[in-house]
């Protein structure tokens, strides 16, 4: 009987995936039919660019969420790093990019250290640092937008090796590939799952829980930084709150990708589905020029439907 139930579960999992893909395709096609400008090269490029930025940030968020923690500082870190690039690019040129990413890493590491050593729930640590960092963005920009006035930096996102593939896409694809490998095939990937599933048992067996937690948060900060830099390069300018949408969108993407918000269940691979879902949906609705309130309502409904389709709720004994 065990056999049967497990096999049944696998089947239903396949079904769910299939349905997700079908729904997805239908949505794309109907957007294309309803708005002819949806399938133009310019629009596809726009989707590619904005989903690459979100994908990078979401990858970091996935590992944190797999551990059962949460990172609310992604948006603030992204804004800060984007602003930092805009600020430093005139003087340092391309060097501003690694510096900004490094700053992201440092922010993430601070999150992790505070979380682990002061023993404060991550939601609050990152809420606190998010507030502080968004204050710091105001500080370094004096509340104004800055344009990114360095061609090489802008080229990093907008330039293209191939016609249809902007550099930003190459960067995010590379990061995604590595992340999938890390998630599936390395110690780190497994440990994050173990911590999310049962932290006490993980500690008992000898998992270095604290180290892994700090690493995951540092990674999340780094990737948020990269995403922020790419965003600034893509937009050609940096605004004070340009990254703040990412905080919620990364979480949504991760969850729509089938990762349990309580941790221990899911993987990085599927996060890309969530990212594409969000980006294509909002792009399509924009092109159709739906009124903003309707867009929000549809977006909320679609989140619910997507999670309904894409997560294995039967296996969660007790839905929290």
């Amino acid at each position, binding site marked *: 009987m065990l056999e049967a139930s497990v096999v049944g579960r696998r089947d239903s999992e396949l079904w769910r995936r299939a349905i997700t893909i079908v729904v997805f395709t239908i949505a794309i096609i109907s957007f294309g039919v309803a708005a002819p400008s949806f399938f133009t090269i310019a629009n596809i490029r726009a989707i590619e660019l904005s989903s690459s930025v979100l994908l990078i940030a979401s990858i970091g968020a996935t590992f944190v969420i797999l*551990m*059962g*923690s*949460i990172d*609310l500082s992604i948006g603030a870190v992204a804004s800060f790093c984007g602003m930092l690039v805009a600020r430093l690019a005139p003087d340092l040129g391309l060097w501003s990019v690694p510096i900004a990413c490094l700053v992201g890493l440092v922010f993430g590491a601070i999150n992790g250290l*505070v*979380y682990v050593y*002061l*023993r*404060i*729930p*991550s*939601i*609050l*640590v990152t*809420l*606190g*640092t*998010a*507030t*502080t*960092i*968004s*204050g*710091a963005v*105001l*500080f370094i920009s004096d*509340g104004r937008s800055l344009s990114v006035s360095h061609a090489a930096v802008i080229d990093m996102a907008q330039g293209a090796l191939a016609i249809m593939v902007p550099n930003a896409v190459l960067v995010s694809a590379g990061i995604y590939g590595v992340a999938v490998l890390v998630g599936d095939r390395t110690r780190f990937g497994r440990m994050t799952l173990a911590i999310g599933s049962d*932290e*006490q048992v993980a500690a008992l067996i000898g998992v270095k829980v604290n180290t892994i937690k700090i690493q995951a948060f540092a990674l999340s900060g780094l990737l948020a930084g990269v995403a922020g830099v790419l965003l600034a390069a893509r937009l050609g300018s940096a605004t004070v709150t340009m990254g703040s949408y990412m905080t*919620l969108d990364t*979480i*949504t993407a991760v*969850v729509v990708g089938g990762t*349990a*918000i*309580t*941790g221990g269940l899911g993987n990085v691979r599927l996060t890309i589905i969530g990212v594409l879902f969000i980006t294509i949906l909002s792009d399509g609705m924009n092109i159709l020029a739906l009124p*903003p*309130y*309707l*867009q*929000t*309502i*549809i*977006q*909320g*409904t679609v*989140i*619910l439907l997507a*999670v*309904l389709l894409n*997560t294995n*709720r039967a296996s*969660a*004994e*007790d*839905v*929290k």
Partner: protein
Amino acid sequence: MSNTWYEPQTTGSTAGVEAKVQIAQFYNRHRPIINAIGPLLLLMAMAAVFASINPRFLSWINLFNLMRQSSILLIVSTGITFVILMGALDLSVGAIVTLVAISSAVLIRDFDVGAAGIAVAAAGIGALCGLVNAALVLRLRLPSFVATLGTMTILGGVSTWISGGANVFFQSPNLTWIGSGSVIGRIPNSGVFALLIFVVASFVGARSHFGRALFAIGGGGLTARLSGIDVLRTKAAAFVVSGMLCGVAGLLLVARTSTGTSRMGDDLLLQAIAAVVMGGTALSGGSGGVHRTLTGVLVIAVLQNGLNIAGVHTYLQIMVTGLIVVLSVTITLDRSRLASIK
């Protein structure tokens, strides 16, 4: 003994070990008191700092002002505590507050509904939103985080739709009196109202069967079910209570300004979660208590009010807020009942 590898602790200084043991025992015996005093000291320290920067901080006017400001957060936080206690989360609280505020404003402006009718409508809309959350979580088995993330977005859209994207002005002396007037001396009504709700809710959380069931569900859902607790009903009730209290908060919020603006309650979400966690209720559920939430609310309220009064530069104010949130949680959080910190 020749082969002792843990020498420092055994033979080293027994006095040191004894002292350590005694401290540990002392802490264990008086843990409740120590944990209660920590936050109090923090609040006093904050008040002292702000008062020394600007003596006006401790004036009656400002204290009543502080009470008025914190009343709404207190009501929302009280509501969300019930949900958090059972290990779930309600991300839609801010959106519900906004929705109720705006729809109340529209009801008064366009339909001329009276004060009593508005009160019922506000609580009703809130409760209804809570019921929708409950249905999504319990019927469709969506994790509460996701379900309420969805309703948060949807309700945000609905609010904009109702308001037509513009601010909704209205006039209602009765409502203004409820929100800003005072019956007992100069103590603001909204503050009295919020405290009343808080006290009742604390008692319900600590002593009622409903409260106990919430703790049991948060601490071990399967055990709760096998002990004959009606898990579904309890969970649904928690969401509805949370929604209803948000409705009340939304009404008070709009009563104060007589204007419904979009997103006016959205900030309350993170503040409420922060207040609950600061109070020492675990996000994983099963430990903490409604009565603890007051500490968190006070810390946040004092912080905002104090920084304003102290005239700190806005950018700096934002930066300091984040740091102090982290710092105060470090002090106030009772970690003894947390299995693991997520």
